[in-house]
């Protein structure tokens, strides 16, 4: 796709601007994330008071993890939603037929748009709670430049993996017309298996093994562990490789599903 780069940047920029319109909503969101951050911090402080080495974290790791989770919640659109909600709505109304005409790939278009959204949420809903965590709970910052940079890369990959899953969820509207049921199910898995509810390092035995292998681990657990400096050297490369692997597999799945669905739209007559 020659010239596609500029187009996608333009799409991303506009998505960024679109989300930045809702200032009161953003402030309310930062407030709410921070309240939950405070609640979970005290819960984890109590947990690590009772067991100071649970999951290989110390108390500061655990509290840092809480605030990172709150900061990532909207950036990775953990509950679902984001720009893929527009896609689901266009499928339901049939407007998708027009989109499929366009000489731009649908996946790339929505991915660019979602990255723009994520950038906005990172700067507001991500940065806000993180600052409060730093000031009130003295959370840890990345200890090396490498860890900081790797975290940034990991964050982008987290958004891409999350986008691909949300795109697949939205695509179910081709068959079900309404994505909301699948979206809630998917959100439930995301909350649990991303480590948002409880760090995956606490998951015992086979449950831990399974959870760490599923794509949702890319959402919170992997970026957080990189931030905390739990991955270094080849281990760090492997962690990022894990995210890349899921990003590639899931984006390919998006293309595949879209091809299947397109055939269906044609059969349906639009």
């Amino acid at each position: 796709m020659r010239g596609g780069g500029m187009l996608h940047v333009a799409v991303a920029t506009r998505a960024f601007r679109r989300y930045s319109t809702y200032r009161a909503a953003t402030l309310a969101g930062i407030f709410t994330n921070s309240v939950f951050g405070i609640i979970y911090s005290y819960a984890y402080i109590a947990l690590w008071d009772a067991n100071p080495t649970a999951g290989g974290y110390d108390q500061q790791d655990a509290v840092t993890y809480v605030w990172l989770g709150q900061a990532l919640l909207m950036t990775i659109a953990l509950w679902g939603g984001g720009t893929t909600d527009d896609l689901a709505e266009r499928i339901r109304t049939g407007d998708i037929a027009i989109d499929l005409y366009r000489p731009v790939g649908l996946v790339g278009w929505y991915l660019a748009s979602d990255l723009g959204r994520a950038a906005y949420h990172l700067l507001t809903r991500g940065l806000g709670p993180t600052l409060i965590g730093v000031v009130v709970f003295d959370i840890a910052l990345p200890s090396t430049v490498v860890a900081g940079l790797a975290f940034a890369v990991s964050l982008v990959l987290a958004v891409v993996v999350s986008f691909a899953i949300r795109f697949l969820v939205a695509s179910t509207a081709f068959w079900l017309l309404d994505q909301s049921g699948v979206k809630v199910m998917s959100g439930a898995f995301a909350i649990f298996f991303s480590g948002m509810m409880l760090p995956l390092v606490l998951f015992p035995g086979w449950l831990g093994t399974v959870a760490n292998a599923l794509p949702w681990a890319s959402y919170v657990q992997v970026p957080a562990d990189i931030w905390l400096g739990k991955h270094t050297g080849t281990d760090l490369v492997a962690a990022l490789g894990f995210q890349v692997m899921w990003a590639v597999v899931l984006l390919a799945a998006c293309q595949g599903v879209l091809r299947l669905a397109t055939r269906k739209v044609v059969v349906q007559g639009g």
Partner: protein
Amino acid sequence: MASPEPAQHLRTYAQIAWLWIRAAWQYPTSFVLLAVGNGLITGLDFVGLWIMFAHLDDLAGFTLHEVALLYGSASLALAVADTAIGSVERIGTYIRTGRLDQMMTKPVPLLVQVCADQFTLRRLGRLTQATVVFGWACTYVDWTPLRVLVAVSMLVSGAMVFFGLFVGFSCVQFWTTDATEFANAFTYGGATVTQYPLNIFPREVMVGLTFVIPVAFVNWYPCLHLLGRTDPYGTPEAFQFASPLAGVLTMAAALLVWRTGVRHYTSTGS
């Protein structure tokens, strides 16, 4: 003479709710997935708590059974309130789209219409899960007639407190229409706080949860009585029986705020 109005409002509420159930059933797959998904979210939520206890003997002195009692009762109270009147959260959308103006022209109290609007049974999932956890935890309680009474009044009062929080904080949207999430800090935040023994929080937070946002009365104080415990913070024993008072006061305050909000409301002007 007592007017027959409340009964009639309830009937109108039921009629509107039934309408929405039938509408939702038009997408049966989504309907089922929504209910299952919501059950799953709350179910996994409890699994999270259970995993926490794999690393602990007790959380701030409370065993898994005791925490399950706290968790189940708070979740049940929230589920009842959320199912009945959770739609009030969307009042900002009604204002923005002008639907609130339409509702005002109808011969049914505004609050009844707003609460019944888009009534959804998907919260049955949470209701079921909360009932199971609460029922399980109840088998570990040494029941006396007084404790049964306290338990029943706890569930009713807890739902009333959440009713008050939902309605009261949703009213913020009369002044700023897109700050929906602000209320979540108090409603869902309140529900999250009450999943834990409240002595994990500092004393100042406890005071706030008792006198400002009285969620401590949803389950903490009455559960102390059910479990035959004294408050680690040494509050008077009378608090353990004061939940109904907290419920009535919260609800009254919320209705007052609602009335002020409706009076303040001047439509979007378009």
